């Protein structure tokens, strides 16, 4: 290809003017490095948020009795263990991994002035898995404890702090509604989520809760079955979440013998809104950072144009000579364009290298409390390179055209 012969020429011209070339590239270097680094920090932050959200259980459906529409709560028939058993049938619910029952009750822990209000959740071992619970001490409840109705308890981080002041809690006894439970595990501090504050919670076997923590609402039993407060249904994937919700709805309507014109008397909630919010936050963040990047690239591009224009003026006599000895306008145009292109591409590559260095520096400031992740994606690299190439062509074009318009006689006389 004829175009190729301009590349060695451009390399020579760039090499003999090292400082000038470097200054020209500086705009692109800074532009590309800042775009990639800020974009990388943005992507890293949103990936971090996504991961947090994912640990909140995006594939979860929360089924509760009663409906909540127009801020009016309408009660419905309680959910029972029979519902849980029905939802656990995989042949009818192909998009459901498991249905986990919860029986919750708020109780006072301790007596007198030191008493604290905590939430006791009766559930099964699957609860830990679907909520990604991590433990700092001991272990979660076992199937055996559930079956044998052992009075074992896994406590939240704050509960452990209050009751045992940070000492080893496993094996100690905790009194809940005046009955002793043995602590088998302590949850990692987690804070608030959709389900409340995990840190002020005590988790005990489901049947024990249903038996010992009776309340009036929901009714303790319904049609001879133990009731549950909520059923947490885990769908196979985020994509199948809606299908799973439809399967839950169908089963529950059938079991409640609701006719076609009767509305649901239960509520199926999910956390997809969290994902949507996070996505829109990430999109805004990315657009904002890309905007800053675009401005710095524009400034860099104008810098290139400026220096290329100076370079054309400075090399007027060279251009005149080249024309005199046989350079067509096309040759001059391509010479300057290829030079601009090479400057911006090399600048882009240096910018990429620097952005990786900056990413490492940013990462070194990261701490567990304030995680800084820098994600430089291959797509961003390709975009940075093509944007800098386009910059070179765009901002190199005008000086190149100026160069072709020089009158060789005038240019030759120019010293």
């Amino acid at each position: 290809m004829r175009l190729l012969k301009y590349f060695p020429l451009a390399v020579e011209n760039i090499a003999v003017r090292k400082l000038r070339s470097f200054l020209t590239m500086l705009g692109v270097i800074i532009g590309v490095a800042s775009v990639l680094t800020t974009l990388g920090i943005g992507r890293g932050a949103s990936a971090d948020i996504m991961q947090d959200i994912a640990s909140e259980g995006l594939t979860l459906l929360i089924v509760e009795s009663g409906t909540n529409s127009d801020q009016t709560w309408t009660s419905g028939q309680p959910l029972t263990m029979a519902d849980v058993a029905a939802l656990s049938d995989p042949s009818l619910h192909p998009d459901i991994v498991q249905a986990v029952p919860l029986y919750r009750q708020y109780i006072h822990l301790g007596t007198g002035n030191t008493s604290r209000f905590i939430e006791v959740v009766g559930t099964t071992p699957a609860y830990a898995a679907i909520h990604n619970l991590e433990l700092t001490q001991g272990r979660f409840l076992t199937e055996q404890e559930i079956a044998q109705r052992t009075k074992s308890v896994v406590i939240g981080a704050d509960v452990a702090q209050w009751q045992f002041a940070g000492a080893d809690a496993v094996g100690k006894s905790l009194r809940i509604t005046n009955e002793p439970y043995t602590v088998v595990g302590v949850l990692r501090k987690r804070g608030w989520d959709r389900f409340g504050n995990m840190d002020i919670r005590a988790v005990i076997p489901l049947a024990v809760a249903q038996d010992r923590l009776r309340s009036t609402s929901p009714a303790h039993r319904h049609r001879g079955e133990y009731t549950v407060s909520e059923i947490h249904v885990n769908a196979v994937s985020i994509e199948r979440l809606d299908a799973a919700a439809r399967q839950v709805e169908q089963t529950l309507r059938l079991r409640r013998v609701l006719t076609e014109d009767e509305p649901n008397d239960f509520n199926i909630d999910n956390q997809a809104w969290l994902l949507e919010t996070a996505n829109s936050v990430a999109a805004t963040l990315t657009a904002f950072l890309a905007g800053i990047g675009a401005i710095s690239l524009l400034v860099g591009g104008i810098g290139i144009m400026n220096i290329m224009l100076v370079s054309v003026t400075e090399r007027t006599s060279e251009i005149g000579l080249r024309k005199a000895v046989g350079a067509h306008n096309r040759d001059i145009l391509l010479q300057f364009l290829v030079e601009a292109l090479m400057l911006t591409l090399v600048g882009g590559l240096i910018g990429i290298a620097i952005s990786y260095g900056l990413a490492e520096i940013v990462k070194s400031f990261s701490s567990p409390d304030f995680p800084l992740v820098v994600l430089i994606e291959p797509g961003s690299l390709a975009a940075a390179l093509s944007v800098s190439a386009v910059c070179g062509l765009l901002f190199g074009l005008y000086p190149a055209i100026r160069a072709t318009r020089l009158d060789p006689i005038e240019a030759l006389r120019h010293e």
Partner: protein
Amino acid sequence: MTGPPPLIEIRNLTRTYNIGRTALHALKNVSLTIEHGEYVAVVGTSGSGKSTLLNILGLLDRPTEGTYNIRKQDAGDLTDRQRTTLRNREIGFVFQEFNLLARATARRQAELPLFYAGVSRKESRRRALNALAQVGLADRADHRPEELSGGQRQRVAIARALVNSPSLLLADEPTGAIDTQTGEEVMALFEQRHLEGLTLLIVTHDREIAARARRIITLRDGAVISDERRPAPAAAP
């Protein structure tokens, strides 16, 4: 009429520059014929139109009126592209100020016309080194202008002008920026090539230089006032 057609034939050539409202006639109704292999000096005071004539003959400028035929082709009919190509293939330029590329080696300077002629790098290199050897600069091929003397620079420029084996060499005050001794050497180089058949046209205000030519055309105020042909020097040493 027999014999080959003239290399250059200009008829009633006029070049007018418009400076504001006034028209400056740089050339007025000039007619000339230059045959293949001639050795012509164009003399005249500054402002006499020498450079304008050279620019038009070198296809760098177009006449306002009149015709210019080079190798029987009417230059007025040629596109810019064709004129550039013709300049590249048929015309070599040597300037008073050498007009070398500031930071390129002598070999690179000599390769320049070949670059635009589309000659391969290897062949360009061979021919450039050959051209440099002919001007006695074989050992200076990798030197840059700032490492060369004035005379050496002009010899690089001559190598560049001759590398494409043109049929016409146009030199604008080729000895104007170098000392007399070196000027002699440069002229000797030209004359050697002239003996090999190159058509030479040298613009100068130096009478001594002009006296070496076989034909002296004198310009004044844009018009030819004399055109004298002289016999070959009786005894060339």
